[in-house]
């Protein structure tokens, strides 16, 4: 931990990996949730976007790694791109289904009461879709960590995954185990963090608000 391995201490490796996951995950959520909400609410948008989405979706995110490296080199940019891709899909799908699951009567009532578009979004769509959006975010976060490990194993210099790879070449099982456990703990901790954000958000926009 203090003496360092593969060119950096565990704390440095962890910091570097965590940053990649957080950046990829946030960009994915910021792009994916609005897109999913739009697809759920607007039928023409859905008809336009869905075919492209279902064309790209069967390709596993990990299969993008070689192309990402080809485009962006072995640095962090390629990893963030792949993490973004992996986290993007669950965000979109869950936001999309979430809006579809909102009771149609709520929309009809809001429209009848003359709610303007913006209030429709803040008062009907967001509270109604929030629980499922968070389910999607949890899946996204998990996908982000899985992808990070793969991306770092394929080609990296200073991350947790890289420690795994170096340790394997040195045949140093206890170091491999440290790497695996660290990845597991980080995944667990970030999920915990997300769950507490979810709790706060659900308290702020409760579902049955009058």
């Amino acid at each position, binding site marked *: 931990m203090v003496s360092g391995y593969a060119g950096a201490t565990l704390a440095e490796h962890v910091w570097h990996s965590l940053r990649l996951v957080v950046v990829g995950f946030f960009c994915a959520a910021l792009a994916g949730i609005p897109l999913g909400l739009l697809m759920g609410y607007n039928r023409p948008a859905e008809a336009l976007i869905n075919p492209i989405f279902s064309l790209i979706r069967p*390709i596993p995110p990990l299969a993008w790694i*070689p192309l990402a490296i080809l485009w962006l080199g072995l640095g962090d940019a390629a990893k963030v791109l792949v993490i973004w891709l992996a986290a993007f899909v669950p965000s979109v799908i869950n936001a999309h289904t979430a809006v579809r699951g909102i009771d149609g009567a709520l929309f009809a009532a809001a429209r009848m009461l003359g709610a303007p578009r913006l209030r429709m979004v803040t008062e009907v769509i967001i509270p109604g879709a929030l629980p499922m959006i968070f389910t999607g975010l949890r899946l996204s976060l998990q996908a982000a960590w899985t992808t990070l490990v793969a991306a770092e194993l394929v080609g990296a210099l200073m991350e947790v995954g890289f420690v795994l790879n170096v340790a394997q070449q040195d045949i140093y099982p206890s170091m491999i185990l440290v790497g695996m456990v660290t990845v597991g703990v980080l995944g667990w901790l970030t999920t915990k963090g997300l769950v507490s954000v979810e709790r706060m958000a659900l308290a702020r926009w409760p579902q049955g608000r009058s």
Partner: protein
Amino acid sequence: MQNLSLSPGRATALALISLALFLAFWFVIPASGLVSEQFLPGPVAVVERVVQLISQPFAGATLPEHLLSSLGRFLGGFLLAALIGVPLGLMMGWFPTMDAIAAPLLDGLRFIAPIAWVPFAALWFGTGIGGPIMIIFAGAFPPCVINAWQGARCVDIRLIEAAKMLGTSNFGMITRVIMPASIPSIIAGLRISAGLGWQSLVGAELIVASTGVGFMMVQAQANIAASTVVAGMVSIGLVGLIIDILLRRLERAVTQGKQA
């Protein structure tokens, strides 16, 4: 949900427009020289490359050969996961002690990404067949266990009581009462685990394999052969889709057979 839903005709038209736009963009961007063909091959180049790869070997084998070795590994890992995971899940659903022992272990392992096993897999089983199979197993195993367990927990209590009254043994209980009743849940789990297994396989092959589509893509990336990389992506997507469709068929056949 908007009340104004689209007519089927308009929906199809919009879908066609979007696919046409997608293809057009994909075609125009490299063709116009905005991005070099070397980095983003157009659709025509990719199709040409796929056709070429069918007869012409790359990285030691043709595309069908790479696909076959990937599929062989996938089947090995997936079947192993199903053969161990499903009975384990059913037993966990039936024996409370078993559940108490295995559940915390599985919960802990769930947070470790399948790909994180790669170094151990390579160390223990090598990079030929054993290592990748272990990674697929790590990806495909949890859904098998979890769904079999859930299925076993949801069996109608009256069935269990009737069987108990008739003096069914533990073994008979699992094979003749719990398993048949949990088949739909088990098959749903197999679908999830096939998807995860196929994904893990791709990841494993990128890192440790010496044949297979993933290996082909890494070699292509090292040689800056983007059209081969994209050809690999397309074939991985297609095979994954076919696996999913087959399992969905099976799922439908089983649920319909149950209703009949």
